């Protein structure tokens, strides 16, 4: 066994171990947990790059825990899809940690710092675990770790965050229950929990109602956690009132991992054949996605609180990924679009939430209408916000443009032209609510303001709270993410990611290639 093949389990195991060590170390020195977490996650990033390289050059990694053979033991399987996701998750967690250093000092009282970092690290461990595991029940364990820590992390902010956290506990638990029930149904029919094994056994019983029921329950359970439109009700409050770091981590990676579960379920547990011919779910999912895209945007337009607007924007953007997943049985471009948007949205939305946090910290502003002249006061943050917003709108040379193009191509390829229209309209709706913010930041209120009487007093009351320039440790991750928006926007257009895409498609056993 090669050394690289141990890396996935090292990452997950060490993350868990580290979380508890951090808790102990926190008693010695409050500042220690942050540095431990940062150092170890950088180390994990280093390892995960080797994993990706190994997967692309040698092939998928299959690791048997404790040497137990798969149907009995827990197997970790890493192919191109999760190696790719693992790098994204770890990188964003690192950036989030750097950002959190000073942001947490501002937002959370000091006695909670140690537990905050412990919880962040535990959540990261959960996300890493979901990403690398090849076992349905093991995935549930990691899912619960990631979710329970998320509930706690939201509640850390206290005050108004408590109720959303409670809502999320209820909804998240229902989702988890549905997931575990679904897994039970599948287990009762096949007698196995290993994904690869299940994939071999299931085709014989695709007609079985228990299998179909199990599939449906898992899908709905995951959809609650991924806040697909009608199931999104818990999400806007959570994103609005959670600590900035947590919102940004949840919006950028937590929810992406939920989509990863969905993709795994579709391709590594079930087959396209099942989805298309036995339950005909693909188009239903596409329509759900289309509704989510439009409804999310429309609700976002109505918002005045920046973070709530971003939250609804996320609802809409999850529609993009879901559309990609839904179209993937019909066209390989769908999966490319979903995979690309997982990364692109993680980068752009992560950046936007961090900007929102920075604006709150320096100027004390939440309401978009108060952002007049912000471009002068916080030039870097506003520039980053603009770039990330353009990426969400889908202007060329930004990341969002490429995923939009992939998805349009997928819809054309699948002969589902309504979704082309939905994608294009959704882009325009994004324009409406993001441009409003850009306008306020840079262009509004010179000479004759729109409504000076209304704007003036609010600004002063806000400025009283903040005013101290945000530190470099917060600006840097924001700028890194903003520049990534542009770098990815060019990179996805080139043919450089093609090998990765080919591996993802072939590892997920898609028949067609692009």
């Amino acid at each position: 066994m090669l050394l690289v093949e141990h890396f996935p389990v090292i990452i997950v195991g060490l993350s868990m171990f580290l979380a508890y060590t951090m808790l102990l170390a926190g008693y010695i020195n409050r500042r220690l947990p942050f540095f431990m977490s940062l150092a170890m996650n950088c180390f994990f990033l280093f390892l995960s790059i080797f994993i990706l390289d190994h997967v692309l050059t040698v092939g998928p990694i299959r690791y048997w825990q404790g040497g137990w053979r798969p149907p009995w033991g827990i197997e970790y399987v890493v192919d191109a899809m999760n190696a790719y996701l693992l790098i994204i998750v770890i990188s964003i967690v690192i950036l989030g940690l750097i950002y959190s250093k000073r942001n947490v000092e501002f937002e959370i009282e000091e006695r909670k710092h140690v537990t905050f970092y412990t919880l962040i690290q535990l959540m990261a461990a959960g996300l890493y675990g979901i990403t690398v595991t090849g076992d349905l029940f093991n995935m549930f364990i990691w899912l619960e770790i990631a979710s329970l820590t998320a509930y706690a992390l939201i509640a850390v902010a206290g005050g108004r965050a408590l109720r959303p956290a409670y809502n999320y506990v209820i909804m998240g638990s229902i989702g988890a229950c549905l997931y575990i029930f679904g897994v039970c149904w599948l287990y009762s029919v096949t007698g196995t929990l290993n994904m690869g094994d299940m994939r071999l056994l299931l085709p014989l019983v695709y007609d079985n109602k228990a299998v179909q029921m199990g599939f449906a329950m898992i899908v709905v359970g995951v959809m609650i956690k991924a806040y697909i439109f009608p199931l999104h009700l818990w999400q806007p409050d959570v994103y609005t009132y959670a600590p900035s770091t947590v919102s940004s981590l949840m919006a950028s990676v937590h929810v992406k991992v939920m989509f990863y579960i969905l993709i795994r379920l579709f391709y590594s547990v079930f087959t396209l054949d099942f989805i298309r011919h036995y339950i005909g779910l693909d188009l239903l999912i596409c329509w759900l996605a289309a509704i989510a895209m439009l409804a999310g945007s429309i609700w976002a337009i109505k918002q005045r609180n920046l973070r709530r607007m971003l939250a609804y924007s996320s609802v809409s953007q999850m529609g993009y990924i879901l559309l990609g997943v839904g179209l993937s049985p019909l066209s390989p471009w769908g999966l490319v679009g979903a995979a690309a948007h997982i990364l692109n949205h993680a980068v752009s939305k992560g950046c936007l939430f961090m900007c929102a946090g920075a604006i709150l910290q320096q100027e004390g502003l939440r309401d978009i209408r108060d952002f007049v002249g912000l471009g002068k006061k916080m030039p870097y943050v506003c520039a980053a916000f603009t770039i990330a917003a353009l990426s969400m709108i889908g202007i060329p040379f930004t990341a969002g443009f490429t995923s939009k193009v992939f998805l349009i191509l997928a819809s054309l390829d699948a002969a589902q032209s309504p979704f082309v229209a939905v994608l294009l309209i959704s882009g325009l709706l994004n324009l409406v609510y993001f441009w409003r913010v850009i306008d306020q930041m840079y262009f509004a209120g010179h000479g004759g303001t729109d409504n000076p009487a209304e704007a003036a007093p609010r600004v002063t009351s806000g400025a009283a709270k903040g005013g101290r320039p945000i530190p470099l440790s917060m600006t840097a991750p924001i700028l890194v993410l903003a520049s990534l928006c542009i770098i990815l926007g060019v990179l996805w257009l080139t043919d450089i990611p093609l090998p990765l895409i080919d591996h993802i498609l072939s590892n997920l056993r898609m028949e067609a290639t692009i």
Partner: protein
Amino acid sequence: MIDMMTPLFAISCPAVAAALILLSRRHPNIREAWTIAASIAMFLLVLSMAPLIIRGETVRCILFQSMFKGIYIGFKVDAFGEIFAITASSLWVLVSFYSIGYMRTLKEHAQTRYFFAFCFAIMGAVGVALSANLITLFIFFEVITVSTYPLVIHEQSPEALRAGHKYLAYLMPAGTFLLLATMVTYYLAGTTDFTPGGIRALASASPMIIVGLFLAFLLGFMKAAWMPFHSWLPTAMIAPSPVSALLHAVAVVKAGVFGIVRMVGYVFGMDLMQQVGLWLVLACIAGFTMIVGSFFAITQDNLKRRLAYSTISQLSYIILGAALLTRDSIQGAMMHIPFHGYMKITLFLCAGAILVATGKTKVSEMAGIGKSMPVTMLAFSVAAIGMAGIPPVCGFVSKLLLAKGAWAAGSYYGMVFLAVILISSLLDVIYFFPIILTAFFKSPAGTADENGNAGDGGREEIKEAPLLVVAPLAVTALFSLAFFFDQNIFYIYDLARMAISDLFGGG
């Protein structure tokens, strides 16, 4: 086909300049020097490709292969693209000088942002001109849209913001349609490369799809301000004059008509346009816009708005030329791009100069202004005469070609559109000549009386705008004259001939 990096260098001139402008924002003189340097460098780079192209070569510059099979992102400079690139880049040089004079005299705010955005807008326009395929073209189209927004709302008053929102409300959906059209073309044909005579694989698609695609393209090229999707252009005239001049007479709107000519000649091809009957649709839209645009122009009192409607009407000459599908008409259309560019920019620069010198924006206030601003108004008259297609100004040349093309199209339709061209030219006379007459021959008695010091108003005192403002507009007016006598300045004539022989074959 030669592979060269020149197009990339040309495009990167403004991008580099934009970065440098941002860095030297505290030193206005250095900041402006970058603009001048970049504009001259870009013009020379663009011009340096012309001799190669006239020899029948195509300059290609592949930036990278894209994710999509058979598509690269990059530049391919053919004769037609070169014409537009030369137009945009040569005018940028002059407008750069003008901008400096204009912005400094009026002590405008946010000048760094202005020059920064201007660079990107020009980059977009030249990028559109040089791009090799629809995807690249689309990318630069969006660059234009986004980068011109800060210029349109430069004043930042609520009115300017509303104009900006209108601007986006038209052009962003247009971009969406263009993206749709691009993707559908790629899906149908497997390529989006501009091919003289059309992409062959498109011909096998069903007529319904072709019509749909055509409509998507047409809406996508809303930048051409064809009616009824034109009203963003007059509204955008709230921008500073240099912006209206270069962007809304040349770069932005010409990018739109450039796209339409590209679509007709290089995506669908003349045969397909003829077969499906799309040429008639396009020609009708163009004819309608030419006439109605002129009527709108007559009613405007604000000089810049009048010019904007004149632009709308003139742009449709180009669209009409492309739609008629004859050798002469398309050549006329291609040559009208630089010629109209030079004439219209002169007019806008004059409007700006009048604003700088006197603060007047309305035609009715301009009585006697020809005496106090002789150079400006002389330049204005030259350009206005050219607009109406009267020799010896270059507008005559392109309009003659267009008329010949309409004649050659034969049948009724040809005659109808010939009539449209003539009527529209007549209308040009109707809305331009009163301005000249008012400026030169009407004495500003009314204003003098109001002020109570008739002597001051009546005296023929020369009160021109600063040199940096007047010189560029004099130069463009001279060029408008020179183009009449030698159409081959900047290789325009040869390039147009070359483009026609690319499209139709033969010499």
